[in-house]
């Protein structure tokens, strides 16, 4: 019991500093949801059901832009697809667990929890209870996110727009990319994605700019990977 508790607390402690930008992020989501006319229950429901900041924001952006369901679902799916990568990486450490564990851990797994637990798992491969780290980190993220969303719903129009809190969203995702800034191929992929998205924002119909940008960038990534493998 003690080892489980220690690992769990380690998870909570490790992820806590990363929760600081999550709070304004969640608040903004709550505010935008209400501004768009969604009911408080709907907005909160999104945080519970989807539990993915980027996906929820994108959903709101597309919803307000009048995108069709198909485009919206595909875009949100595209944004969420990075979780496939997280799952693939974690299957090495967690594939032995029972289904219930897997379902719970998958639900609470988000970017920040992945970041800290991945570091922990790599260093503590022999810990029988290492999955408790992800449980602690994930549930901390979940709790902070739900509370922030509710705060946003309640605060609504009280926070002045000039603070530019929506810039925080761009910043948070920029910050999650810093590990990839040092890799040349990743920078190329990022530029393709960003430029296509910016140009496509106005030129691509049906608000499909996210999907198009992501696919273009992934195409470039695939080409770069194959060229690289051929050289070796």
């Amino acid at each position, binding site marked *: 019991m003690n080892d489980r508790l220690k690992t769990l607390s380690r998870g909570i402690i490790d992820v806590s500093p990363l929760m600081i*930008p999550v709070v304004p992020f969640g608040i903004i989501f709550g505010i935008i949801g209400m501004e768009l006319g969604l009911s408080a229950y709907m907005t909160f429901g999104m945080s519970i059901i989807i539990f993915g900041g980027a996906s929820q924001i994108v959903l709101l952006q597309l919803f307000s832009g009048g995108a069709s369901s198909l485009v919206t679902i595909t875009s949100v799916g595209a944004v969420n697809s990075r979780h496939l990568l997280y799952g693939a990486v974690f299957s090495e450490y967690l594939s032995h667990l029972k289904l219930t564990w897997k379902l719970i851990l*998958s639900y609470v797994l988000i970017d920040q929890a992945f970041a800290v637990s991945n570091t922990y798992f790599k260093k503590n491969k022999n810990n029988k209870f290492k999955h408790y780290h992800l449980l602690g980190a994930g549930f901390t993220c979940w709790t902070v996110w739900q509370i922030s969303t509710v705060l946003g719903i309640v605060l609504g129009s009280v926070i002045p727009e000039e603070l530019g809190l929506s*810039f925080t969203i761009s910043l948070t995702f920029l*910050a999650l990319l810093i590990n990839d800034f040092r890799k040349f191929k990743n920078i190329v992929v990022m530029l393709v*994605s960003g430029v296509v*998205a910016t140009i496509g924002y106005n030129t691509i119909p049906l608000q499909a700019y996210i999907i198009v940008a992501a696919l273009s960038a992934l195409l470039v990534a695939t080409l770069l990977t194959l060229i690289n493998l051929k050289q070796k």
Partner: protein
Amino acid sequence: MIFLLKEDILNYKMKKILSYVPSAIFPAIIFPPIFLDSSGSLDLENNPKILAAIFAILVGYLSKNIIATIFAGLTSYWFLIFVV
């Protein structure tokens, strides 16, 4: 959904390509709000968001610290819009 997959279904090549997913997706969310103004046209002159973002990238590259990056970006942004 994620790790209902068995361990080896994703081979080396797929994992390599999947590792680019964040780099492929996030900029699509990051770039438009920074470079486009509220009417959707390109806003390159005197845009505090671009400068703040560049500063944040620099800090991120050097510090490798997520909190520092966000903090640097926010403070430089507020500085630019309130002071300059």
